[in-house]
């Protein structure tokens, strides 16, 4: 990447299943205030552009963009909504800087999913209206189908997926932001209620509310703003086909392509040896294994074995989701990817408290937009 861009501010609310004492504006204000304080910037003067990541039906509005600016300090400023995950927002922010139009950008993503009383119906509403939606049912059956295809195709096992849950929920015990930190074993997961077989209750990340904000700046500015800028050295995003019928089930092409784009930008040829740790999407347990194989951090069919060998644990060679991931912290909907990025930034800064990894120089954050999409993004961060 020719233009150097740094994360100069990072902030987040805690992640909680219910935030009924705050409205969405107050929740976002809290996340933004923390990030701006962290950066030492006044958004009314020092930030050139604001990006939020949101979708109308998550929020309950026809044009959610209207309800964004005030709480971000963005009123009467260049501001936009990206209908994507937080890492898509990060990509837009980086492109704004690289195009020379702005110097400092704030990226916000959030979940206020507790305001939505009919989550399943809204997810179903994202299905193709003619071919898929009339089949109704709980929309997560698509994840069950994918998990089945992935396990059959790759040779990974249900027990290994349960191992992901155990690792991530345990990791979350050390994350003060996390909502679902808990000591669970493989047996607990295997014994949990069958939901979308082979997916069981504990294989599925529970929903939470929260707001995450990162402030990015071009190199010349970044050095003035931050003592410990964390550099974004590559990013990418990609979408596979929206047709459920047309997918190569069990393969996350969006993650492969997004990572390839990010690696190319960052000049990474051998991700397995060049990346020290990663935060990957784990809205369902199998997704962590699937994504690790897709982004080249594990060989095809090997992710489960690597996990069992301890490679992905906090004290392993390649710690994965030391934050606790979505399984341990909660599914933050479109903010999930930005939370992955936040954790990478905190680790690289040495601010990850009880879950701090040793000697980390470079980390990957990867996201997926959830059922029924085949869209995701990735970004590389370095000290």
């Amino acid at each position, binding site marked *: 990447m020719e233009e150097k861009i740094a994360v100069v501010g990072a902030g987040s609310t805690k992640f909680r299943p219910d935030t009924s004492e705050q409205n*969405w504006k107050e929740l976002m*204000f809290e996340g933004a205030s923390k990030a701006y304080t962290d950066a030492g910037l006044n958004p009314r003067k020092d930030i050139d552009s604001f990006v939020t990541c949101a979708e109308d039906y998550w929020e309950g509005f026809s044009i959610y963009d209207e309800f964004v600016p005030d709480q971000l300090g963005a009123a009467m400023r260049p501001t936009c909504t990206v209908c994507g995950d937080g890492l898509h927002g990060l990509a837009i922010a980086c492109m704004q800087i690289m195009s020379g139009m702005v110097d400092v950008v704030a990226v916000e993503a959030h979940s206020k999913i507790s*305001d*939505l*009383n009919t989550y399943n*119906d809204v997810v179903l*509403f994202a299905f193709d209206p*003619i071919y898929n939606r009339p089949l109704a049912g709980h929309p997560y059956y698509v994840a069950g189908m994918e998990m089945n295809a992935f396990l059959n195709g790759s040779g990974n096992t249900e027990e290994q997926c349960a191992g992901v849950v155990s690792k991530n929920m345990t990791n979350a015990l050390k994350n003060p932001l996390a909502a679902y930190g808990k000591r669970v074993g493989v047996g607990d997961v295997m014994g949990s209620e069958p939901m979308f077989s082979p997916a069981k209750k504990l294989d599925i990340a529970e929903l939470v509310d929260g707001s995450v904000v990162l402030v990015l700046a071009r190199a010349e500015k970044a050095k003035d703003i931050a003592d410990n800028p964390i550099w974004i050295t590559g990013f990418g995003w990609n979408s596979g086909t929206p047709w459920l019928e047309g997918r190569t089930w069990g393969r996350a092409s969006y993650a492969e392509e997004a990572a390839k784009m990010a690696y190319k930008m960052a000049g990474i040829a051998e991700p397995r040896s060049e990346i020290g740790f990663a935060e990957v999407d784990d809205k369902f347990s199998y997704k962590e294994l699937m994504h690790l194989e897709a982004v080249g951090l594990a060989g095809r069919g090997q992710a489960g074995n690597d996990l069992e060998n301890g490679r992905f644990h906090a004290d392993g060679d390649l710690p994965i989701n030391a934050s606790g991931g979505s399984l341990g912290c909660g599914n933050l909907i479109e903010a999930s990817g930005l939370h992955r990025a936040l954790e990478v930034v905190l680790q690289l800064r040495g601010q990850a408290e009880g879950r701090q990894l040793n000697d980390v120089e470079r980390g990957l954050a990867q996201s997926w937009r959830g059922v029924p999409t085949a869209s995701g993004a990735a970004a590389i961060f370095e000290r």
Partner: protein
Amino acid sequence: MTKPENPRGVELSSKQMKEGDVIVNKWDPRVKYAWATGEAISRFLEEMKNGKLIARKCDSCDRILFPPRMFCEECFKPTTEWVYIKDTGKIETYSISYLDKDARRITDPIFVGVVSIDGASEKMGIMHYFDETTKEDIHIGMPVKAVWKPPEEREGAITDIKYFRPLKEGEE
């Protein structure tokens, strides 16, 4: 060559839809929300029940913000103080609507507009209905006063005010 050249697309008339010439695929989405109102608006709604309008003050810019909010969007700082304001104000703009919310025609028009509220900073107000006036009399700049529902009918909603009516001479 004029662009766009030979634009594509096939028009479908509502007649074709109604008479079943085309297959129509319908879906009634089940989408329900219960928005947390938050600190500022919760108090605002509670005070509406009491028949009062309340605002928040920003210490930094000295504005009295209405509708109230916990942070000032100009200063990006938390607001500091609750301030009761009046239930009188001025019509900033208005419309006389012959459409309901789904664009259906109505014969008894709705008088609606923005009222800036006395006691709040300049231009700060809410959208609401007007009544006890006529198409001829209503005008921008007209002083108005809230007409509240009886206390037992109030539920903590913007509709606890039924409408705003012209302020009478000598009235506050």
